[in-house]
């Protein structure tokens, strides 16, 4: 646990998480084939200290399951997850519980994630009690106040005795962030942290996360919003049907996309300037069912540039022609 500083904080390799599809009584008796949703289907990436990686993709692409698998909130089927230098993909649930204090999860909806009966103090203090930390009452109080301050709820006296219903959406999300900071974690998994908030307060929450990243926290941000990812993340990984299809430095991915799926996604993101209108390259249909992943390249049925080889070759992530360092795409035509 000593010299992970320069190397990765989190290294995920070939992660696979499947959910069995219930066959029902009739299906079992008639021995219908066992099916599984391949929610995460061979995902690899790494995250360093003080880095923000955005996992971007449409719903059903496996972003949230990836985050849940890392924390073992759902059990991955195979693959390795190295966190703080230790392979946590197979450690006991007791060991996992101690490790979880270093990796916290921030949810999308601050209206749902806070217990309405808990004052801010109790919400932020709870992780300390669960992990039996923070010593006596006075010390815990001090740590709660520090966490609130770090989350931008200053002065903490103004917020510590309030109930969630007395707070705005942005303030609630800050309380949730304070609760995830109180254990001083190394890694934050933020699942759509601003999508429920008004435009006017989103920037404040994202700036807060950006500041935490600068102070050394590793952040895995899950978002469907490419504009937000382009602005705040160091790197972007684009997911499609359980697989990362493109990954690289955020600006590079947005300005020089190599995978046809990324190109299409970027083309449909509306821009603020009406003069920036360019005909969107609209893909037809919706992301296919992850129970029946197409053979070959999983994007080939919707791909505008697919060739016969794409139906037989499952492309690996590799450096495409004309890409900057650290830019990878899984496309044989890139």
């Amino acid at each position, binding site marked *: 646990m000593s010299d992970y500083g320069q190397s990765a904080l989190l290294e995920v390799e070939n992660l696979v998480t499947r959910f069995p599809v219930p066959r029902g009584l009739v299906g079992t008796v008639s021995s219908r084939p066992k099916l599984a949703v391949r929610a995460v289907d061979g995902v690899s990436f790494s995250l360093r200290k003080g880095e923000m990686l955005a996992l971007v993709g449409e719903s059903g692409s496996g972003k949230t399951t990836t985050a849940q698998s890392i924390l073992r909130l759902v059990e991955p089927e195979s693959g390795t997850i190295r966190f703080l230098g230790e392979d946590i993909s197979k450690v006991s649930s007791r060991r996992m519980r101690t490790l979880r204090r270093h990796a916290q999860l921030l949810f999308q909806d601050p209206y749902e994630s806070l217990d309405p009966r808990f004052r801010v103090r109790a919400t932020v203090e709870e992780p300390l009690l669960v992990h039996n930390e923070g010593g006596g009452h006075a010390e815990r109080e001090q740590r709660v106040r520090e966490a609130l301050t770090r989350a931008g709820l200053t002065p903490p006296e103004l917020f510590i005795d309030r109930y969630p219903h007395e707070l705005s959406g942005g303030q609630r999300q800050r309380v949730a962030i304070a609760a995830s900071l109180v254990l001083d974690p190394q890694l934050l998994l933020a699942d759509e942290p601003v999508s429920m908030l008004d435009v006017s307060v989103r920037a404040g929450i994202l700036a807060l996360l950006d500041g935490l990243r600068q102070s050394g926290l590793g952040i895995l941000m899950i978002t469907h919003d490419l504009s937000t990812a382009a602005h705040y993340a160091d790197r972007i990984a684009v997911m499609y049907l359980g697989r990362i299809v493109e990954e690289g430095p955020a600006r590079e991915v947005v300005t020089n996309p190599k995978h046809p799926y990324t190109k299409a996604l970027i083309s449909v993101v509306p821009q603020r300037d009406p003069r920036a209108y360019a005909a*969107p390259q609209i893909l037809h249909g*919706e992301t296919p069912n992850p129970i029946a992943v197409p053979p070959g390249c999983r994007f080939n049925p919707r791909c505008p540039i697919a060739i016969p080889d794409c139906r037989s070759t499952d492309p690996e992530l590799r450096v495409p022609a004309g890409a900057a360092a650290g830019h990878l795409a899984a496309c044989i035509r890139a």
Partner: protein
Amino acid sequence: MSVPLLQFEDLHVWFDLEGGRELHAVQGVGLELEEGERLGLVGESGCGKTTLILAAMGLLPPSASVAGRVYLNGEEILAEGEDSVSPHRWVDIAMVFQGAMNAFNPVKTVGEQIVEPMELHGTASGRQARRQVGELLERVGIPAARASSYPHQFSGGMRQRAAIAMALACKPKVLLADEPTTALDVMVQAQILQLLVGLTDDFGLALILVTHDLPVVAQVCERAAVMYAGEIVELGPTDTLYHDPRHPYTRLLFAATPDLYGTDEVVSIPGTPPRLDRELTGCPFTLRCDSSFAPCATIKPRLIATTQDHLAACHLNDPALKAAS
């Protein structure tokens, strides 16, 4: 001058609150919409966007009281309350509600549910209605044969298309769409926006697109109205609103929205909108504004023309006030 297709004139909406208090949700809105036009209505939650369009539909809850006028082709449709608005509802002016895609009846086929408004308003029935359902579904990009499917057999994007088909069942002239793409993925959002643009271009349908998403409005609408605290604070062509905003709120909203290729810092707007259950003095935005000056605290700015097709409610546009301070 020709009569606008839809016109709001000094519209006010109050909601009764407990304890005899009132919430002044819409505070004197004037707005005009032409045939085939796409108008964006933007602002933060609680600014009165949805209340305004529900008023035009005559669909506000009983706790609401309305003052002011809404004209459709020059006819005042709220004059006699329900009696004067109901002949136009769905027939001339229709709405896609927020979350409409999740509001279908799960035990009826999609086709049956689209026939309902046709039969209710007597625009079509029987075989003719079923044929029209097929045509409508095809128009929104769903094969006609899927009319016999149940809502759960549709994907989210298809349900939203079906909700649009349902709003169009009686061939209205105006479509009010409340956050029609908010819960959808960006690719499906693009499909739905393309559909709405096609409907206005091909049939002269007029669209009011209510959303908090400025880039969506920038790419879809020719004009937009920015609402704040129950009022329109700026109204003009979307191009002008982005390149030459005349209200600090509009400028700050754009600055708070990350852009795919933008490199400028994204900044939040401090504070929260004022409460609407008490009398406001001065400009409602002054406490959050980065350019307010002395008169803003006491004098309420009126919505005045800065150029021919551009209106803003901000003292910065008043040279006399600026010179005096």
